[in-house]
């Protein structure tokens, strides 16, 4: 029953998306308001049908309906209820359904916020995207296919049975998909021939919202990797992680350039191109994760047909969008611009967006280079973390220099000596603080920590003057500075030890001693395992007990390390149990990671900054009204 109704509602949704995309476009072309009026109702209907399909799939998971192949492959009767509900997006088919559901939710939000005379065209473009993805879902990855024989269920991948996973993918997808609204609005504005202030304002609001979710999604993802993968790292330059960072970088550039387009009436072409790039990169991300061209922690299903379909989709949508862009752009070149000074916010914002795009390109190159070589049979290579670290470190430092200068600039012409004075003051204050802080914490000075800490403080000092007028920007920049401090200090100060331990042994690490007390067996609904008990002591005072586990998930016969972490503002203690060696000996990995929390704390503050931007704009609008 669930299967039948699920498929029927998906087909109805496909039908609605067709109406939503074709009729308003026709209406715009033929100047026929009645056709355009179809946009909103069909968007609503499509949302309802997708929601029904999604709820049906969730019901199938909660009631263990193993007659559906997708449920049987990703669930088991012994799986806890929370993970049964989130298993809906645990693999390919459900993820695409969630993708489409989120797209439709964004479409609804657009329908409520866009100006009445523009909404039909925007919705028609969103409908087109939805139509493409519904075709993809129904043709290559239908979540409602039946199972062939009686099934007990293959259980959810144990890596995904973690609270971090419950919210990470939806947040990431909301971010990804949100950029398609910015794209649709830009395309609609290009087709109408009006890249005006209203367009910049509204697009920016949606782009900032999408950016907030993407920031949160990436932060949660890195927290999940830290907790679950058991290697103590928070970012691995895994191609799938890169795929989420690419739209984030171009999205950051977009929301900065849209300020220019809104306040200064310049760089509109660049802003429109960035909106296009953001959308292309989120499609590329979906392609990379879902086509099976990459092998990583996140790719679970490999099917060449899906990859080809997505690649075709990417090619067609982007070519069409670029064609519209190239044909329409010359009509905007003649708008008059305000006087230009090299020392102004205009330059700072443009520089910033340029640098972000350069950073994006370097990551894109490192991610795609091995794939391209492999596709043309030129050898199998891999581009690892050292490449990304060595390219990104100088780029981030340069971006940080300009992040500290930008807020000091004004829109209009300003006396240069005052600007230099202020910058010099911040520079020396930052340098002195950084050196004294590092000296007191580390007792030694290295070049990179000093520079990055100095630049972080330099950024925080630069926003002092604009906390009141631009609270969102100030928050987001501070969050970024905090994140950089966290990344830098945790990577320079962290200590780790891999060792063989027997109950009764102790290990010293940093200022802490770790005593291995004993092991005992544990079991959960769908796993059994062994839990070790470690007593952590600092200066002969008991700090905490840590209980890392080694689990075997019985259905998939898969071994999992479950780490135990003692978090703190200034340091994390982290133990991962390795393999059982002979006679109750274990290999154990212990980490002492100072300032680890700051990385995610910074990410969350950045997201809050974005939220403030949206809230403040609402307030401003209310005041004006």
């Amino acid at each position: 029953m669930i299967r039948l109704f699920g498929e029927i509602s998906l087909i109805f949704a496909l039908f609605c998306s067709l109406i939503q995309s074709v009729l308003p476009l026709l209406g715009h072309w033929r100047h026929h308001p009645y056709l355009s009026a179809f946009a909103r109702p069909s968007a609503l209907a499509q949302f309802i049908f997708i929601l029904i399909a999604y709820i049906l799939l969730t019901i199938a998971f909660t009631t263990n309906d193993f007659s559906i192949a997708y449920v049987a492959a990703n669930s088991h009767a012994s799986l806890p209820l929370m993970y049964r509900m989130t298993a809906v997006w645990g693999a390919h088919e459900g993820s695409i359904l969630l993708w489409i559901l989120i797209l439709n939710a964004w479409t609804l939000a657009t329908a409520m916020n866009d100006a009445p005379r523009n909404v039909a065209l925007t919705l028609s473009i969103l409908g087109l995207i939805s139509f493409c993805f519904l075709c993809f879902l129904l043709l290559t990855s239908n979540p409602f296919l039946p199972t062939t024989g009686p099934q007990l269920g293959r259980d959810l991948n144990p890596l995904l049975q973690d609270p971090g996973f419950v919210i990470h993918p939806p947040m990431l997808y909301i971010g990804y998909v949100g950029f398609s609204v910015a794209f649709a609005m830009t395309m609609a504005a290009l087709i109408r021939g009006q890249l005006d202030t209203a367009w910049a304002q509204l697009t920016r609001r949606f782009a900032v919202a999408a950016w907030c979710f993407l920031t949160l999604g990436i932060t949660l993802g890195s927290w999940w990797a830290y907790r679950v993968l058991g290697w103590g790292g928070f970012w691995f330059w895994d191609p799938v992680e890169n795929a989420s960072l690419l739209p984030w970088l171009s999205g950051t550039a977009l929301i900065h350039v849209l300020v220019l387009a809104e306040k200064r009436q310049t760089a509109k072409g660049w802003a429109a191109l960035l909106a296009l790039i953001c959308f292309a990169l989120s499609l590329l991300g979906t392609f990379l994760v879902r086509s099976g061209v990459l092998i990583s922690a996140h790719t679970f299903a490999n099917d060449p047909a899906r990859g080809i379909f997505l690649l075709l989709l990417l090619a067609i949508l982007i070519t069409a969008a670029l064609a519209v862009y190239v044909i329409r752009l010359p009509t905007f070149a003649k708008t008059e611009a305000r006087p230009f000074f090299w020392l102004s916010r205009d330059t700072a914002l443009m520089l910033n967006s340029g640098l972000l795009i350069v950073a994006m390109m370097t990551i894109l190159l490192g991610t795609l280079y091995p794939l391209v070589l492999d596709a043309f049979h030129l050898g199998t290579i891999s581009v690892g973390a050292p490449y990304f670290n060595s390219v990104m470190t100088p780029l981030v430092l340069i971006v940080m220099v300009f992040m500290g200068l930008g807020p000091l600039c004004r829109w209009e012409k300003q006396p240069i000596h005052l600007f230099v004075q202020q910058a010099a003051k911040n520079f020396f204050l930052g340098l002195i603080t950084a050196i004294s802080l590092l000296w007191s914490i580390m007792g030694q000075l290295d070049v990179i920590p000093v520079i990055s800490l100095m630049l972080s403080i330099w950024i925080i000092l630069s926003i002092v003057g604009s906390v009141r007028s631009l609270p969102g920007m100030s928050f987001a920049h501070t969050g970024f500075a905090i994140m950089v401090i966290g990344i830098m200090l945790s990577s320079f100060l962290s200590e780790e030890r891999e060792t063989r331990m027997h109950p009764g042994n102790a290990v010293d690490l940093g200022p802490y001693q770790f005593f291995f007390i004993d092991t005992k067996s544990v079991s959960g609904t769908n796993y059994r395992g062994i839990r070790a008990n470690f007593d952590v002591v600092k200066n002969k005072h008991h700090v905490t007990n840590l209980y890392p586990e080694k689990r075997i998930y019985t259905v998939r016969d898969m071994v999992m390390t479950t780490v135990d972490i003692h978090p703190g503002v200034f340091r994390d203690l982290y133990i991962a149990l390795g393999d059982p060696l002979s006679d109750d000996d274990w290999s154990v990995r212990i980490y002492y990671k100072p300032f680890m929390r700051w990385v995610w704390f910074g990410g969350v503050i950045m997201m809050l900054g974005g939220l403030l931007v949206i809230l403040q704009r609402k307030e401003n609008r209310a005041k004006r009204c």
Partner: protein
Amino acid sequence: MNNIQKRRLYYVILFTLGLAISTAFILFALKKNINVFLTPSQVFQQNNFTDYHFRLGGLVKPGSILREKNGLGVQFVITDFKHDLTARYVGVLPDLFREGKGVIAEGSVNAQGIFIATQVLAKHDENYMPKNVYQEIRKNAA
């Protein structure tokens, strides 16, 4: 020059500069940080491999894992069913490291012909197998 032209000139100069700098960075970094991926057969086809850092992919030969009495040293054989290569690693192995399963190790071959792994990669997919190893195995099976 009017304002628009001036502005454009600045932007074009900035972007060209940015592009040049970034290309330099990328080429420099790529040159140093590419890992070539090889199978045991490919290693045997070419001699004189000492001190060359690469990624070795294959399957862990069943029954070949030997743990040392003290410390964390492990020896195992990486195979693609045509050639075997003994590897040694000191440290904690990833969860999915198992006999008969795919593995990727990074390191170099020493004078005794043993592959000294500096890193054993944690590929988190239970069915994971390096692509060219998979092709080799299919060839050998046929």
